[in-house]
């Protein structure tokens, strides 16, 4: 070993030890449960029923982490957080991971936190009455649009119409409820908000089928799980939990066929389920980490459909959240 090599090796060891100094996984295991920061109640994402049971797309990601770590989805402590105090709760270690429909932005990542993945691509869209008989936002010229005042929604709307050289009439309201009521009573032709919110608002209209959400998305709102910047091992665990669920859907492995899949001869399937290779232990988990997730929670498509898709009241089309080879942009790097 030359002196140069010695220093290189030394630097590598020093880097490795500082980067895992936080040891979130160890803390979680010692504590016996995962502290998952969620919303105070958002249909489809994180919501508590009258029996105290949490459910939603975000909640299923908390459960998937508990499945991978403890092989037990009940070992999650849900911490409901407001939009204002969510990042401070993560930074102060009151929670281990934040999965609270939070938009990934540069500004937020300069403040000590980092996004591990995107579990839902949201964005601003439009709802209109089906009877209006239009199927593109570009047909909204000279129509009136209701929106909440003083939000980025209002600014995005102005940008979109300006960029497309369209004129429109905007009507703003102080609260989401007032905006929704104004649309329902026919004061405006269209309602604009994030698409996931529009689908939630549509469930309250009578009947919902008289309204459609246009396919146009005019802003980027990538939502995903967030961790602190001090622990690469933990970042990887959260990231690859989401990726394992997306890869499983692509490979056709779900809650019902995971045992059958254990016998598969396909290398991709064998690697994901830990039959071949040992990626789980390299992550700090067990060989069968992904099989645990699939058995106890399911693949990405299953959690999508059950919480926000065809199996839920919301009925949001997969759209951007469909797999990359099926019309969407959900894409997970390979497990190998």
């Amino acid at each position: 070993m030359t002196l140069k090599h010695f220093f290189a090796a030394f630097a590598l060891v020093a880097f490795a030890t500082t980067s895992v100094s936080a040891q979130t996984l160890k803390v979680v295991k010692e504590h016996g449960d995962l502290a998952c920061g969620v919303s105070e109640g958002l249909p489809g994402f994180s919501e508590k029923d009258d029996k105290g049971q949490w459910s939603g797309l975000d909640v299923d990601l908390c459960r998937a982490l508990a499945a991978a770590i403890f092989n037990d989805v009940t070992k999650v402590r849900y911490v409901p957080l407001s939009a204002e105090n969510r990042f401070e709760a993560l930074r102060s270690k009151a929670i281990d991971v934040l999965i609270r429909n939070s938009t990934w932005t540069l500004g937020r990542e300069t403040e000590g936190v980092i996004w591990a993945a995107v579990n839902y691509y949201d964005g601003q869209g439009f709802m209109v009455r089906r009877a209006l008989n239009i199927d593109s936002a570009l047909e909204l010229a000279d129509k009136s649009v209701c929106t909440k005042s003083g939000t980025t929604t209002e600014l995005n709307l102005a940008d979109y119409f300006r960029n497309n050289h369209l004129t429109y009439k905007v009507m703003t309201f102080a609260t989401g409820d007032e905006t929704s009521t104004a649309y329902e009573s026919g004061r405006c032709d269209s309602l604009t908000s994030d698409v996931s919110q529009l689908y939630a608002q549509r469930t309250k209209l009578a009947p919902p089928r008289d309204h459609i959400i246009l396919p146009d998305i005019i802003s980027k709102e990538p939502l995903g799980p967030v961790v602190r910047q001090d622990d690469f091992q933990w970042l990887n665990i959260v990231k690859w939990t989401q990726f394992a669920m997306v890869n499983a859907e692509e490979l056709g492995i779900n809650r019902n066929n995971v045992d059958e899949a254990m016998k598969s001869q396909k290398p991709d399937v064998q690697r994901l389920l830990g039959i071949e290779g040992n990626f789980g232990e390299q992550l700090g988990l067990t060989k069968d980490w992904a099989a645990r997730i699939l058995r106890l929670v399911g693949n990405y498509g299953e959690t999508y459909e059950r919480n926000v898709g065809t199996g839920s009241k919301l009925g949001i089309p997969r759209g951007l959240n469909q797999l990359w080879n099926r019309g969407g942009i959900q894409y997970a790097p390979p497990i190998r």
Partner: protein
Amino acid sequence: MKKTWIWMLSVLLVTIAETPMHAQTNQEMDMMALADQPGYVPNASEEQLDAIYQRQPVFYRTTESPGTIVVSTSERFMYLVEGNSRAIRYGIGVGRDGFQWAGIHRITRKAEWPDWTPPPEMIERQPYLPRFMAGGPGNPLGARALYIGTTVYRIHGTNQPQTIGHAVSSGCFRLVNPDVIDLYGRVPIGTKVVVQHAPTL
């Protein structure tokens, strides 16, 4: 006739016996779904689908050219590609287990209020079906049919709107009549049809 009765009765008994045994997953519900009801005429409100299965424009990225029909059997949706990352999505009923298939074909024929001549394979499985039924509102093929390549499969309407979103057919893709009329007006003979498979383990 007597044989048919016994057969139908046994199916019914098996169904009753099995129902309470385990939770009804979607798949099991599909297998228990209604048989064909030739002669039944649905009313307009039955043809109003849930918001999820209603015809609607959606975001859809694909390398297929505009005008192509993409059938996603596992999703129970049919997409008519419009380009610019958009498609019109229709809710469909698909083949039951063992009757699902995949491939690339073209539309070879279009027909309004088609007659129904169940193919011999179908008669063998379901001997109680009529040998021929003239086109019209009670016809299981519904208001329009689009013939897929030289296969026995069609994209057609239905007199059973409640089967949309389920796996019930013998491999055909069914839409409610207002939707198949809409699709019929948009696609010419020669349209490419891509039927996608669910991945296998």
